C-alpha cells in the first residue's frame, strides 16, 4: 500500500463514521458538528484526487455557507434539543437488509469493471487548469445550459426569500 492509499482509507473511515454520527447523535448541535466533519472529509477526498478546486469549493460552499447557516438556525432556537426517545423502531431490519443488499450488488457490479483495482493514474498538467473549467461553463457545446439553469434557480431562491422576508404593511 502506498502512503496515499493509507491516507485515503483513514479519511474514508473518518468521513463515514462522522456521517453515521451526524444522523445518530442525540443533540442536534452535535449532529451539525459531525456533518461539518463529514463535509471536510469529502473535501479531503477531493484533495487526494488532486482536484484542488473542488476541495476548496467544498469547504467554501458547504462548510463556509451551508454549515454556518445550519448552525445559525440551530442557535436561533436557543434549545439544546436533546432527543430522548428510542432511535430505532421495530422495522429497522428491513432497510438494513435493503441497504446491505444494495451495497453488495453495487460492489458486485463494480468489481466486474476492468479498472476496479487500478491505481489512480497521474493527471496531465492541464487537468488543473481552471481556465478550461471556466470556458466549459460558458461553452454552448459543454455545460452552459446546466450552468444557466442553476443560476436561474439561485436567482429564484433569492427573489423568493426576499418576498417571504419582506414586511408588508396591512
Amino acid at each position, binding site marked *: 500500500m502506498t*502512503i496515499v492509499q493509507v491516507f485515503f482509507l483513514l479519511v474514508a473511515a473518518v468521513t463515514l463514521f462522522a456521517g453515521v454520527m451526524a444522523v445518530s447523535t442525540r*443533540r442536534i*448541535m*452535535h449532529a451539525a*458538528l459531525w456533518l*461539518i466533519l463529514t463535509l471536510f472529509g469529502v473535501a479531503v477526498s477531493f484533495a487526494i484526487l488532486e482536484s*484542488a*478546486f473542488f476541495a*476548496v*469549493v467544498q*469547504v*467554501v460552499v458547504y*462548510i*463556509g*455557507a451551508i*454549515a*454556518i447557516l445550519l*448552525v*445559525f438556525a*440551530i*442557535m436561533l432556537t*436557543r434549545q*439544546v434539543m436533546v432527543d430522548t426517545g428510542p432511535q430505532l423502531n421495530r422495522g429497522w431490519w428491513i432497510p438494513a437488509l435493503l441497504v446491505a443488499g444494495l451495497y453488495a450488488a453495487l460492489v458486485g457490479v463494480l468489481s466486474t469493471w476492468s479498472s476496479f483495482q487500478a491505481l489512480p493514474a497521474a493527471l496531465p498538467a492541464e487537468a*488543473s487548469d*481552471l*481556465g478550461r473549467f471556466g470556458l466549459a461553463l460558458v461553452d454552448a457545446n459543454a455545460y452552459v445550459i446546466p450552468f444557466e439553469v442553476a443560476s436561474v434557480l439561485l436567482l429564484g431562491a433569492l427573489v423568493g426569500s426576499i418576498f417571504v422576508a419582506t414586511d408588508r404593511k396591512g
Partner: protein
Amino acid sequence: MTFWNDPINFIRQWLETLLVGWGVAPGVAQVILLVAGAAILGVLGLVWVIFLIWYERKIIGRLQDRLGPNRVGPFGLFQPFADMFKIFTKEYITPEGADRVPYNLAPVLAVAGTLMVWGVIPFASRIFGADLAVAVLFVVAAGSIGELGIIFAGWGSNNKYALLGAFRSVAQLISYEIPMVVTLLIPVMLSGSMSLQTIVQSQSIWFVLLAPIPALIFLITQIAEVGRAPFDLIEAESEIVAGFNIEYSGLKFGMFYVAEFLHAFTTAILFAVLFLGGWRGPFAEQIPFLGFVYLWIKTFLIYFLTVVIRGTVPRFRIDQMMDINWKLLTPLSLTMVLVTAVVHSLVRPLGSPLVTLAALLVANALMGLITMQLMRASTRSRRRPMVAPSTIIVARPETERQQSTLE
C-alpha cells in the same frame, strides 16, 4: 544557491540529502520534510504573535499619549513573555451547562483558520508553503473556518452575551465576506490566475495603482473580518462585555487573543501580496531572502495603518456597520468588478502597461467621484433625526423680561 541567498531552500535540500543518506525512501523523506515545514511555519507564526502584541501595544500606547509597556526588558520587549507565562499558569474554567465539544474546539479553529492562510502565502520567490492554483479561494475557505470558531465559542459557552457576540459575528463577518470575495476577483482578473505566486509575479505595476478603490474596499473588509475597532461590535466591551470569548480563561482565551493578532497581521500580508506586489522589488528574484524583507516592509506599512485606524476611529453602531456594507461596499465592489473587467479587456489588446494603468486609474477616479456624489446626495436627502436639539424649548429670557417691563 548559497545559504545567505536562500536559507530556507538550502536547509531543505541539506535535510533531504541527509534523510536519503540515512536510508529513508525519497518519497517518505519528502512527506517528512513537508510535515516538518508545516509545523515550523505554524510555530513561527504563533511565536511571531509575541512580537506583534508588543508592537501593537506600544503603538496604541503612543496614540493614547502613554508609553506602552516599558518595564520588562529593553523597551518593554519581554512584557508579552511575562503575560504569556502568566496565562500558561491560569486555571481553565468551563462554565456550567457548556457544550464541551464546540466550547473546546472553538479556540483551536480560530487559530487554525488564520494559520492555514500562511500555508499558501508566497513569502519570497522560492519560499512558500504551497503554490496552490486556487490559493485565493483557499484564503476564503480558511476565513470561514475561523468564523466557525467564533460561532462555536458563542454557542458552546452557554452565556447570553457570548451568544449575542456570536450573532453579531455572523451578521458582520458573513456580510463583509461578500465585498471581500468580490474585490478578490479583481487581482485574479488582472493577473489571470488564482495562485498567489502568479498574482505576485504579474504585478510589474502594483495592483493598488491599477485598482485603488477595490484595494481600499479590501482593506476595510479585512479590518471588519478581523473584528477590530472600528468594527469591534463582536466583542464590544461596553455593550456585550466581551462577546463570544467571555467565558474563556487561561490559554483558551489566549488562543483567541493570538488568533486576533495573527489574523490582523495575516490580512496585512494578504493586502501586501494582492495589491502591493508581495515580495517584488529590486534583486528579489536573484536573492529570495531580499524578497522576504520587501514583503515584511510592505506588510508592516499596512499593519501600522490598521493599528492606527484601530487606535483612532470609534466603534460603529450596528446599523451603521450594516449600512456601510450593504449600501456602499457591496454595490461599489460589484460595480468595480464590472468596470475593471470592461476597461481592462478593452485596453489589454493595445499591449501597453502604461495605457492600462492610465485607463484603469481614470476609471477608478470616475467611479470614486460618482460614489462621492451619490453619498453626498443621500446624506442630503436623509431624514433629520427626531430628537435633534432645537431651540423651541428654550424660552427667550431677555425678550420676556423686556416685555414684562414694558407692561
